[in-house]
């Protein structure tokens, strides 16, 4: 029975719980605090160290997420009052975070000039760094990379892989010789393309049936599924598998930089999206709509545009990726031959040419259901 006394006790206990968190942060106290939620890279000592040195007395913390939706879930469940910057791939920022008010626009006048120093694709500014209306700048872009699939070129020639595209994985000879890197959202796009469907356009019932069939075939022929790129690369290098479905410079570069240059990200020569079959991700770093904002957020975004820092971000501890600022000769000068080879700089322009932007998959919900059902069976 709940009477007044037990109720009061309960209230007191809740108050006690609140006291656990200590006094509420004062509204003026965050000039010297910055919390960054990002993909691995911005959180390393190499990036944060110089920034901390520039802002002595400040408390700068960064945490690396393990997937876009993981990071977004944190904001959705209430951590908007914790983070100041969030770094996710382009459609998540533009189509989920911004419309839901979880991130806020940047000072366009302050940041627009930086786009002019970027690779041509990103100048003007890059359309997916703007909101739907094209008026507000919702984030800055830095790392990017084509993302389709990865092969061991000692076993499967680059030429053949590029010609066959995703159909490679439907070849009966490949059964048991490849893995699926289960970044679900990417798998879904690539499986659509393997089924000759354009994932960014609305699909019909017969298309869903085609998708299901291809998804089942790909899961069925896979030797392993994992979302762990270390495990996947290790299996590839040790010959357990000869290719993996869903991957690109982001996953291949650490192996290549290790000297395993037979590991190579492949962008198909052609595909169902206006003739293109590759997809490219571009990270967008945005200011979180924190009720208690800090000026350090925009300072940090500006800080990472410096050539030396661009290089450090591109070659952070974990994975290596091209950055948009590589149009700047000062940035380019910081890369040596092995580093450029690790990120497949030689073929990057043609791979970008054959790729489309990672966008919202129109029928994602339905495809996701079919995808999970195929994975389960």
């Amino acid at each position, binding site marked *: 029975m709940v009477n007044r006394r037990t109720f009061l006790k309960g209230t007191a206990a*809740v108050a006690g*719980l*609140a006291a*656990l*968190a*200590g006094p*509420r*942060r004062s509204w003026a106290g965050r000039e010297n605090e910055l*919390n960054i939620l990002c*993909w*691995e*890279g911005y*959180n*390393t*000592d190499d990036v944060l*160290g110089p920034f901390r040195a520039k802002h002595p007395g400040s408390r700068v*913390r960064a*945490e*690396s*997420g*393990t997937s876009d939706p*993981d990071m977004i*879930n*944190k904001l959705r*469940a*209430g*951590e908007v*009052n*914790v*983070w100041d910057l969030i770094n996710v791939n382009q459609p998540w920022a533009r189509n989920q975070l911004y419309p839901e008010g979880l991130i806020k626009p940047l000072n366009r006048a302050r940041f627009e000039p930086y786009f002019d120093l970027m690779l041509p694709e990103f100048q003007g500014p890059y359309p997916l760094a703007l909101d739907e209306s094209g008026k507000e700048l919702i984030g800055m872009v830095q790392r990017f990379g084509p993302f389709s699939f990865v092969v061991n070129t000692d076993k499967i020639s680059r030429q053949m892989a590029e010609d066959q595209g995703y159909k490679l994985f439907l070849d009966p000879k490949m059964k048991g010789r490849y893995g699926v890197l289960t970044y679900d959202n990417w798998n879904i796009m690539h499986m659509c393309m393997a089924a000759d469907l354009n994932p960014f356009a609305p699909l019909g019932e017969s298309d869903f049936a085609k998708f299901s069939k291809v998804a089942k075939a790909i899961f069925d022929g896979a030797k392993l599924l994992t*979302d*762990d*790129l*270390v495990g996947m*690369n*290790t299996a590839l*290098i*040790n010959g357990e598998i000869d290719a993996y479905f869903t991957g690109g410079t982001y996953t291949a570069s*650490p*192996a290549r930089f*290790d*000297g*395993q240059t037979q590991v190579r990200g492949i962008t198909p020569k052609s595909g169902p999206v206006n003739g293109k079959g590759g997809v490219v991700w571009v990270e967008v770093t945005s200011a979180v709509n924190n009720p208690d904002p800090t000026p350090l957020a925009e300072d940090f975004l500006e800080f990472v545009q410096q050539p030396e820092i661009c290089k450090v971000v591109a070659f*952070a*501890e*974990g*994975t290596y990726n091209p950055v948009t600022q590589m149009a700047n000769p000062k940035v380019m000068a910081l890369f040596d031959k092995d580093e450029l080879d690790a990120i497949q700089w030689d073929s990057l322009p043609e791979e970008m040419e054959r790729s489309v932007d990672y966008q919202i998959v129109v029928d994602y919900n339905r495809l996701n259901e079919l995808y999970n059902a195929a994975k389960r069976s």
Partner: protein
Amino acid sequence: MHHPRSIRIALLCYGVTLIVFLYLPLAAITFASFSKARYLTFPIRRYTFQWYEKAFASPTVADLLTTSLKIAIVVTVISMVVGFFGALAFARYRWRFRGAFQKFILLPIFFPQTVLGLALLMWFNAVGIIPTWKTAIVAHLVWIAPIATLIVAIRAYSFDPALEEAARDMGASTWQVLREVTLPLLWPGIVSAGLFAFLLSWGNFPLSLFTTGADLTLPEWLYAKMVSGYSPLVPAVGTLSVVGSVILIGLGTAFVVWSNRRRAAMSAGAED
């Protein structure tokens, strides 16, 4: 009961085999931590110490250790206290709502931890608490305190209530009985529960993921590194945890042995 020598030896060998087996993956990890290359093929060809140098030089690693330790120590202390009383209610006393209590405290263990973490974050947010490492303590406790209770309950089930009754008959107060009889009898179970609590908190990833706010624990960092930014720094930190724990436990054991000897010597001295 007497056990033949052959059985003792066989069991000894069995124990050693299991331990060797437990250490096999750690051996692989140690190899990996000395490898120059990120992606391994055994036998390893090029060795290096650079990952250890990085681990020692990194302010991040030091920060992670402190946060994880702080959380684990508080969780351990609270779990031991709560687990001691909880186990008495669970197994020792017969009282009206015992059945319900037993079922209720098992529920958190059935909960998938990531979901629990996310739900807790939403609850903290609703109450207006900004998550930090302190909220992670609370989150860990939801899951660990019931487990600690269960561990203590194993002993609480088996002990003889007559001992407590005898003490009470001799005029001891409830509090005295608890302190002088019950607590010492359950102590091995409580220590065991404390150990479990410490290790479960130290190694927890899914609950910390959503409840530490901008603070970061070692398992969170290691997990993210494994998934998206692997370098042999990861196995190096793993190997260092083994070395660190061996030193800590060695010192702890030495201290216990030393203080027992001293106490024995002192009481022997008092008797003279």
